[in-house]
């Protein structure tokens, strides 16, 4: 009897260690709520992830945070205390990702943010952003504006963190690069039914270009609003608007608009010299094979890039410590910080100790809407 008990105990211990050897990843995504347009395509690609990396099984847990910071935090707590994850990923919604950062940092778990979340200096020790920061994108946009003789810009953006970070970063980058002046700032919310008031004021200021900061199909209404009020200058949209939905909803009014984007969605048009061409093509091929032609989007690309980073970092971390331990989590964090120049589908990452944004300025691409399709400028 005693022998059996011992045997059972040994078996249980063995099984437990075997289970612990899996690399556990806890992902919190907005599958419902206002940011579900970002979370759902990411989740689509996460379903296509490999089942193992560097010979270790991946255990992926995806939870819905409903675009709610409170829900995101409780997901993060669950990942840390119950699931004992090695890596936290998410959220795709900026406010949720920011709220989750504290839990990740307290427990010493690396967090891969799927949103360009701004954290106070020193707070992002454990957090790495996978999407391009607004500064990198603003860089590409300002270079394009300078080339096209744009001297003044009118700003029409969301009244949320995304709008705010674009305004701050655009102004800062523009000053640095000697780019255009922001002459008028107006705000709106995604659920608004009209931007007539804002558009009137912006058109009256008569800037050379208009910068619209909004996401997905929500970017079409302000664009149409500005055009309807007779604005004839250039209109720029940000990378959150770089989806088919902008063209689908905006129709002929968004024709000729300039949109910043990561390179992941337009591999066919990238010059052969672009570092991301091959990976972007691979991403698009895999995504469209599973979800149909034309289904590509940049959010799925971030999920693709997460795996590229993990494939580079995990072998080194596995040499240092066992999955499930504190040391392993620290090894992953250090590994990401020191992995050096890494080409992903969305550009070139190069995290350093002081820069957890990663992307270099070779990342941003400016697309032009021509005949309802994208054309690289």
């Amino acid at each position: 009897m005693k022998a059996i008990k011992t045997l059972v105990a040994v078996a249980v211990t063995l099984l437990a260690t075997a289970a612990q050897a899996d690399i556990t990843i806890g992902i919190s995504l907005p599958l419902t709520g206002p940011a579900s347009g970002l979370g759902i395509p990411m989740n689509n690609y996460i379903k296509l992830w490999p089942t193992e990396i560097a010979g270790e099984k991946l255990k992926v847990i995806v939870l819905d945070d409903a675009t709610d910071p409170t829900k995101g935090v409780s997901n993060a707590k669950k990942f840390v205390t119950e699931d004992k994850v090695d890596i936290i990923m998410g959220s795709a919604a900026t406010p949720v990702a920011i709220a989750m950062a504290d839990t990740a940092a307290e427990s010493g778990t690396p967090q891969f943010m799927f949103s360009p979340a701004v954290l106070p200096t020193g707070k992002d020790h454990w957090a790495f952003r996978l999407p391009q920061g607004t500064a990198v994108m603003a860089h590409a946009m300002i270079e394009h504006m300078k080339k096209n003789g744009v001297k003044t810009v009118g700003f029409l953006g969301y009244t949320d963190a995304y709008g705010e970070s674009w305004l701050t970063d655009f102004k800062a980058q523009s000053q640095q690069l000697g780019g255009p002046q922001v002459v008028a700032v107006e705000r709106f919310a995604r659920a608004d039914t009209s931007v007539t008031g804002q558009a009137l004021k912006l058109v009256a200021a008569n800037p050379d270009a208009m910068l619209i900061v909004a996401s997905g199909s929500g970017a079409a209404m302000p664009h149409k609003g500005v055009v309807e009020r007779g604005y004839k200058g250039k209109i720029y949209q940000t990378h959150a608007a770089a989806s088919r939905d902008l063209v689908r909803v905006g129709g002929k009014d968004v024709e000729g608009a300039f949109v910043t984007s990561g390179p992941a969605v337009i591999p066919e048009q990238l010059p052969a010299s672009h570092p991301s061409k091959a990976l972007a093509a691979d991403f698009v091929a895999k995504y469209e094979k599973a979800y149909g032609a034309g289904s590509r989007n940049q959010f799925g690309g971030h999920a693709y890039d997460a795996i590229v980073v993990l494939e580079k970092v995990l072998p080194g971390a596995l040499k240092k410590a066992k999955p499930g331990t504190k040391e392993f989590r620290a090894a992953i964090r250090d590994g990401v910080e020191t992995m050096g120049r890494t080409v992903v589908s969305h550009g070139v990452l190069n995290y350093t100790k002081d820069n957890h944004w990663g992307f270099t300025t070779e990342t941003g691409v400016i697309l032009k809407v021509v005949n309802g399709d994208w054309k690289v400028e």
Partner: protein
Amino acid sequence: MDFTIASILTLDGVTNGAIYALLALATVLVFAVTRVIFIPQGEFVAYGALTLALLQLGQVPGTVWLLLVMAVVASVLDAVAGLRRGLPAAAVATGALKSLAFPVAVCAVAWWAAPRQLPLLFQSLLTLAIVTPLGPLVYRLAYEKLADATVLVLLIVSVGTHFALTGLGLVFFGAEGFRNPSFWDSRFTAGPLTLTGQTLIIFMVSIALIVALYLFFERTLRGKALRATAVNRLGARLMGISTSGAGQLSFGLAAFMGALSGLLIGPTTTMFYDSGFLIGLKGFVAAIFGALASYPAAALGAVFVGLIESFGSFWASAFKEVIVFTLIIPVLLWRSFQHGHHDEEE
């Protein structure tokens, strides 16, 4: 600000106000008859606009299946209740068939018509036929058993219904927005103003509907029955008016007005599955102007909300929603000073 800008803003405000007016009237109607503060009013706006959008794409919208499922559940509940009361099985079966006939017919038409891309007007009527019956069904399934509960309980049910309908909206229509084609794609210039055909349609339909509602309440037996229920539920029942029938009718009207607002607003903005909530909430603010009782005050309040919104977005766009929703506080203060304190349970 010069005259040109002021007139453009006024036009914009009154156009949105006309939509809010429809929703405010529906909110007042539902509250007066059933004491339900109908938060999901806005969901019918989104359902109306997005159902049409999916029909335009040639797909069968999810609202069709929702209608079918809700109709089946409601008739099963009716049948069970009928059998419990000891009605003969044949009578119960005919009753169930009767209540199922219209939803099933609508579903069949939608299923047949969706891939055929029929004219816009037909699709709009079909949309109204799909969304309108959802109103009585929501009343039947969520509120009817609680008809005598306190206003607070009914409000909590409304919040739950709102979340359920928004969630279903995400399932049916996806996270991205749609913009419907304009019903009348022409433009008229009057001085600095450009009137689009769609704006004119919004005005005409809103005014026509308000007149029709007036006639309905003043001239028809059913309308008078609704008014009687609003004045005194018990008294109305003693007079042989079915309060449950009145509730279903008022929810039907509310769903119809919501769906119609959705059709009207769909071509002028991008509608998301959750856009309806804020639009409905603005209708609710307008209804507060009428103390949830007066139709003309609610309609005027709606135009006022629209104007404040459009001028607010010109002067201080970052605070637009704050301005609109803060309006409720002075109005409530004024109302409570004017009427003193009421205990709702009295």
